[in-house]
């Protein structure tokens, strides 16, 4: 089929203005939240119904056109970067709520609805949807499923995978998979777990059933200011060792504290080496006891503690943390946000090493992160207009991720691999593991046309990098040529 044939058929299958091909008009879609990487899509399809999604997939399959699925485009790893010869299947017009089942504590929604809109819609029933990535005001639930998104409250409430009960998925081959539902436990291989976190590589999610939780009746926020990053790191482990699982446990280092304070006037101690923000929630009695115990842990490690039981002061304490990223924009023209996870016990050591690596590369790094989960977000500050700085920032980022893997962690805790961390994946997985991932993808998408080139590097790419991680000197399929 000719290219125009495909476009004509797509236009006929979609509503008016549902297909964008004009070179200028597709520009807003050329990047997701990883703005350093851009590509104008061949065409942008904006379906409004599942039937239209199916039609787009059918036409693309018949025309052998690759498809990249996209939600709100807030992803931070380039997972929704378009292809110049592919269709960008954008689901933001499918944002309806199909059902709120208060008895079941579930909501069934279309993929384009924003994360926050779900919690807003169910608040009147005293319920909420727990995962809250920082982009929750804009990011779509379909994108959350693709990335297995986290957020500030994962330690207690889990990631997307812990809060999604059912999915409807369309495959490139034209099949519809109805997976899970309202929490029925079925024995056997559960494909739900293949889809969640698969970065749009296996199929298109067209419906999501999420679990809703009762809104906590009581919250308490404590801020501990520390003289050293290491003692703050130790306090994280100590709180958990007390048997307390806070709703959120966030840490900021001094560069981040100063930037946030200049930006938001949250009342943070500018001289502290690190602060810990600890949010507790639950019943009143439980929160009151836990707050006392957390205060003791923090103070016993020399922290200055500020405590907030009322909503206004709590919001004030969170304000600095929540504005940390925009605040960075004021102290550096560009920043590169990393996303490694390490065991909590390694926090102090790894943060120290990140500081040393930053000095080695002549760049500044600020740390704002989910300490309770060991999920680091080092922000590498640089100026893209200075020749070589972007490359230096990327190289430093690579070193930081290697350090995370060395510490027993992972190259991505919640932002996904996308195109950004393909090289880092070569370090975390060996050839046999990557080959297994590719076979799993082929089980859903034998033609390899769903979001090709993302999430899992090819063996050839890893070989070229020289970073191929080989177990016991053995490569699988030694007969294959590697170049």
């Amino acid at each position, binding site marked *: 089929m000719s290219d125009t044939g495909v476009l004509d058929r797509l236009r006929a299958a979609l509503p008016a203005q549902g297909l964008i091909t004009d070179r200028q008009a597709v520009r807003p879609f050329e990047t997701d939240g990883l703005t350093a990487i851009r590509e104008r899509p061949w065409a942008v399809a904006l379906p409004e119904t599942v039937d239209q999604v199916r039609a787009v997939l059918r036409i693309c399959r018949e025309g052998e056109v690759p498809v990249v699925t996209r939600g709100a485009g807030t992803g931070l790893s380039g997972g929704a970067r378009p292809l110049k010869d592919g269709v960008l299947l954008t689901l933001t017009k499918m944002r309806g709520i199909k059902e709120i089942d208060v008895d079941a504590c*579930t909501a069934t929604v279309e993929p384009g609805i924003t994360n926050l809109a779900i919690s807003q819609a169910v608040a009147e029933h005293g319920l909420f949807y727990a995962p809250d990535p920082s982009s929750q005001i804009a990011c779509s639930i379909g994108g959350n499923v693709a990335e297995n998104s986290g957020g500030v409250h994962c330690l207690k409430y889990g990631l997307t995978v812990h809060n999604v009960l059912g999915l409807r998925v369309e495959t490139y081959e034209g099949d519809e998979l109805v997976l899970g539902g309202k929490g029925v436990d079925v024995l056997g*291989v559960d494909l739900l777990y293949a889809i969640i976190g698969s970065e749009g590589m296996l199929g298109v999610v067209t419906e999501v059933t999420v679990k809703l939780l009762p809104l906590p009746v009581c919250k308490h926020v404590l801020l501990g200011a520390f003289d050293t990053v290491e003692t703050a790191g130790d306090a994280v482990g100590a709180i958990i060792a007390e048997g307390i699982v806070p709703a959120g446990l966030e840490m900021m280092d001094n560069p981040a504290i100063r930037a946030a304070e200049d930006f938001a006037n949250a009342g943070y101690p500018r001289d502290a080496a690190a602060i810990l923000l600890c949010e507790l929630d639950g019943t009143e009695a439980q929160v009151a006891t836990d707050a006392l115990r957390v205060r003791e842990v923090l103070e016993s490690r020399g922290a200055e503690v500020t405590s907030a039981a009322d909503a206004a002061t709590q919001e004030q304490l969170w304000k600095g943390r929540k504005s940390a990223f925009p605040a960075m924009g004021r102290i550096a023209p560009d920043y590169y946000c990393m996303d490694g996870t390490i065991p909590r016990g390694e926090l102090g050591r790894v943060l120290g090493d990140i500081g040393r690596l930053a000095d080695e590369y002549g760049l500044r790094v600020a740390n704002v992160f989910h300490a309770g989960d060991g999920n680091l977000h080092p922000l590498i500050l640089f100026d893209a207009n200075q020749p070589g700085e972007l490359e230096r920032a990327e190289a430093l980022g690579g070193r930081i991720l290697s350090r995370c893997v060395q510490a027993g962690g992972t190259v991505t805790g919640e932002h996904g691999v996308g195109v950004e961390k393909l090289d880092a994946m070569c370090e975390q997985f060996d050839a046999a593991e990557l080959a297994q991932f590719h076979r799993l993808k082929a089980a859903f998408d034998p033609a390899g046309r769903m979001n090709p080139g993302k999430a899992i590097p090819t063996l050839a790419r890893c070989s070229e990098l020289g970073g191929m991680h080989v177990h016991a000197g053995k490569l699988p399929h030694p007969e294959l040529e590697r170049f």
Partner: protein
Amino acid sequence: MDSAEELVAMVADCRVAERRIAIMGHGSKPRRVAWGHETGVEELSTRAHSGILEYRPEELVITAQSGTPLAELADAVAAQGQLLPFDPPRFGGEGTLGGAIASGLSGPARPWRGSIHDAVLGVELINGLGERLRFGGSVMKNVAGYDVSRLVVGSLGSLGVVLSASVRVLPAPAAEETVCTRCSASEADVRVRCWARRPLPITGTCYVDGTLSIRLSGGPAAIEPAKVDIAVDESGDAGIWEAVRDRAHPFFGRNDVITRLSLPRGARFDDDDALIEWGGTQAWIAGEPRSLAANVYAETFRRDGDGWTTSRPPVDGTVAKYVERVRHAFDPDGVFVGAGSG
């Protein structure tokens, strides 16, 4: 003890010799007898591949080899004031970590503390090609690559041999109390569903023989007000949770046929003769199910000599096609017997 090398060699040998393998831990699960019907199947036992590899309580994670007895794991975490949130069944006191993962079974706190799917953070696996692969890890948040660790949960040995796994643990509550009240199944159903919408420290519900038992967990400061809140304060039998979890409760001896019903959240179920747990989302009935709503999943266990055989409803055709392809992706030559014959 580490017998990974022998296990890898066995899979590789069987693949070459075109012999099939059934993976076995303690062999405590009901469906074990089914494998006997297939000839030429070799048993691969993970029993000797046992031991805790790493446990740092402040990380809330424990990593152990697949043959590690569940009782050993539970004791190790209990000694540090922690618990296995998925609280897997131990039939006859037996069961291994690998078996719990392969069968995807969770205990009485499942709706509140999460399932075994929720708890698994990483696995090391031998696939059907005899390759030793690691997926996931020992950290809570990890989105590098497809989530193979959780895909393996419940796959009944059809994707590979789990060699080791990292699972999340939780702090044990400072206090726990079981309270109970006499009521009809219908009344229990209404009350339990109403509690599900409120932030209460409930970690177990079980209705059987006209008594609704409720387990409350937390600090003492949380439990007393909760008893007032749910208006139940009669002291109950704290042993019921383990008895139901391990199918040792007398209810499970009442019939040679027992059916497990997995009910969608929010569905009404008020059979006075059933055992109803998990906040009304799992029920057991003695005998065959009579009429069931379409969205209820029913799995029947039939006593067969010393063991049980099971029958499950067929998987939807389209989903089954993809499940088969996924199995093929892990085990292209069909080395593992897996659940197919169960």
